[in-house]
């Protein structure tokens, strides 16, 4: 039985049932948040650490959650922030003479399952070639099917800007795949 957001919030707000609430929160959102983080970071171990940190932050700062926004919007915001922080750390660790796009494409190749289709691999490489904001908007819209209004709350951008960003991102990805697809 799927537990509703209202129940999770009620459990989290009561100190006696907080642990039960954290478990319910993870059961409900771990998969969606994991894939959102994984698509940004790509590296599996770092994505796991980042998701853990997301849930711990959510538990520690639950008193800051306002009921006027959706629970998943609030969680996506934390997860996105944590993932972007992790990406910045990775960039600092990266060799200065290495091309960032080439680095990300190598990371994608290393983390992809053996049976993945070429077109899917190309799509991931195309996403990694996008600027940070376009990448975020595209992933939340394309994979998670989030409404622009909710994405707007997560990334602090207007709905109009988001639509433009998504349009440009989609165009670049399609061009990238046309250029690189061999079949």
């Amino acid at each position: 039985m799927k537990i509703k957001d209202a129940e999770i919030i009620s459990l989290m707000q009561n100190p006696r049932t907080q642990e039960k609430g954290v478990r319910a929160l993870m059961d409900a959102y771990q998969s969606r948040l994991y894939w959102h983080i994984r698509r940004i970071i790509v590296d599996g171990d770092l994505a796991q650490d980042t998701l853990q940190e997301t849930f711990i932050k959510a538990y520690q700062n639950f008193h800051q959650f306002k009921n006027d926004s959706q629970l998943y919007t609030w969680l996506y915001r934390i997860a996105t922030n944590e993932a972007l922080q992790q990406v910045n750390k990775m960039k600092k660790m990266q060799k200065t003479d290495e091309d960032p796009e080439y680095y990300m494409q190598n990371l994608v190749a290393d983390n992809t399952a053996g049976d993945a289709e070429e077109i899917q691999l190309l799509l991931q490489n195309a996403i990694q070639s996008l600027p940070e904001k376009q990448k975020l908007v595209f992933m939340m819209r394309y994979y998670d099917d989030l409404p622009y209004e909710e994405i707007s709350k997560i990334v602090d951008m207007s709905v109009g800007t988001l639509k433009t960003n998504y349009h440009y991102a989609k165009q670049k990805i399609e061009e990238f795949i046309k250029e690189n697809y061999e079949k």
Partner: protein
Amino acid sequence: MKEFDIEKLERKNIYKVPDDLFQNIQDNVMNEVKTEKKVPVFKLNWMYAAAASLALIFGATYVFNSDNDPAKDMLNPQSYASNMQKPKTESERAYETLEADLTSVENNNQTIANQETKPVSYTPEKGNENVTERKPVKATSKKEDTKMNEYLDSFSNSEISELASNSTQDVYLDLYN
């Protein structure tokens, strides 16, 4: 490829995922949550805080108002300067130690003069009739030593050896009996 629409492409997650990924994540998060809950939060009762503050104020007032306050003297530069002594050198300290040692010997009356004037005597135990009474032995002077040497010179070698054997026995008896 001429025409391509990504909206028509199937949404797939192509990355490798380890077994028990979400179970591990949940375990790690719950461990962290439980650890955070166990950490005790120290709440200061305002009554105790007020009592501690009052005690501190009265204590400080008492210390600063007392006349025999060494801290107060230390704060006065003149008294501090008068109390201050120059640090002693190593030779001065060695001399003082030696002087103290000599003084301690003097205090115990262990001077040569005391040793010469006091006669060494042996007092026999009461009821022991076999022991002969001995006169107190006086420490010999230099004049007596020279007389003794002249007297010994007058003896022949054989006589001296005979005397020596007797005297050894006497000394032995004197020391250990």
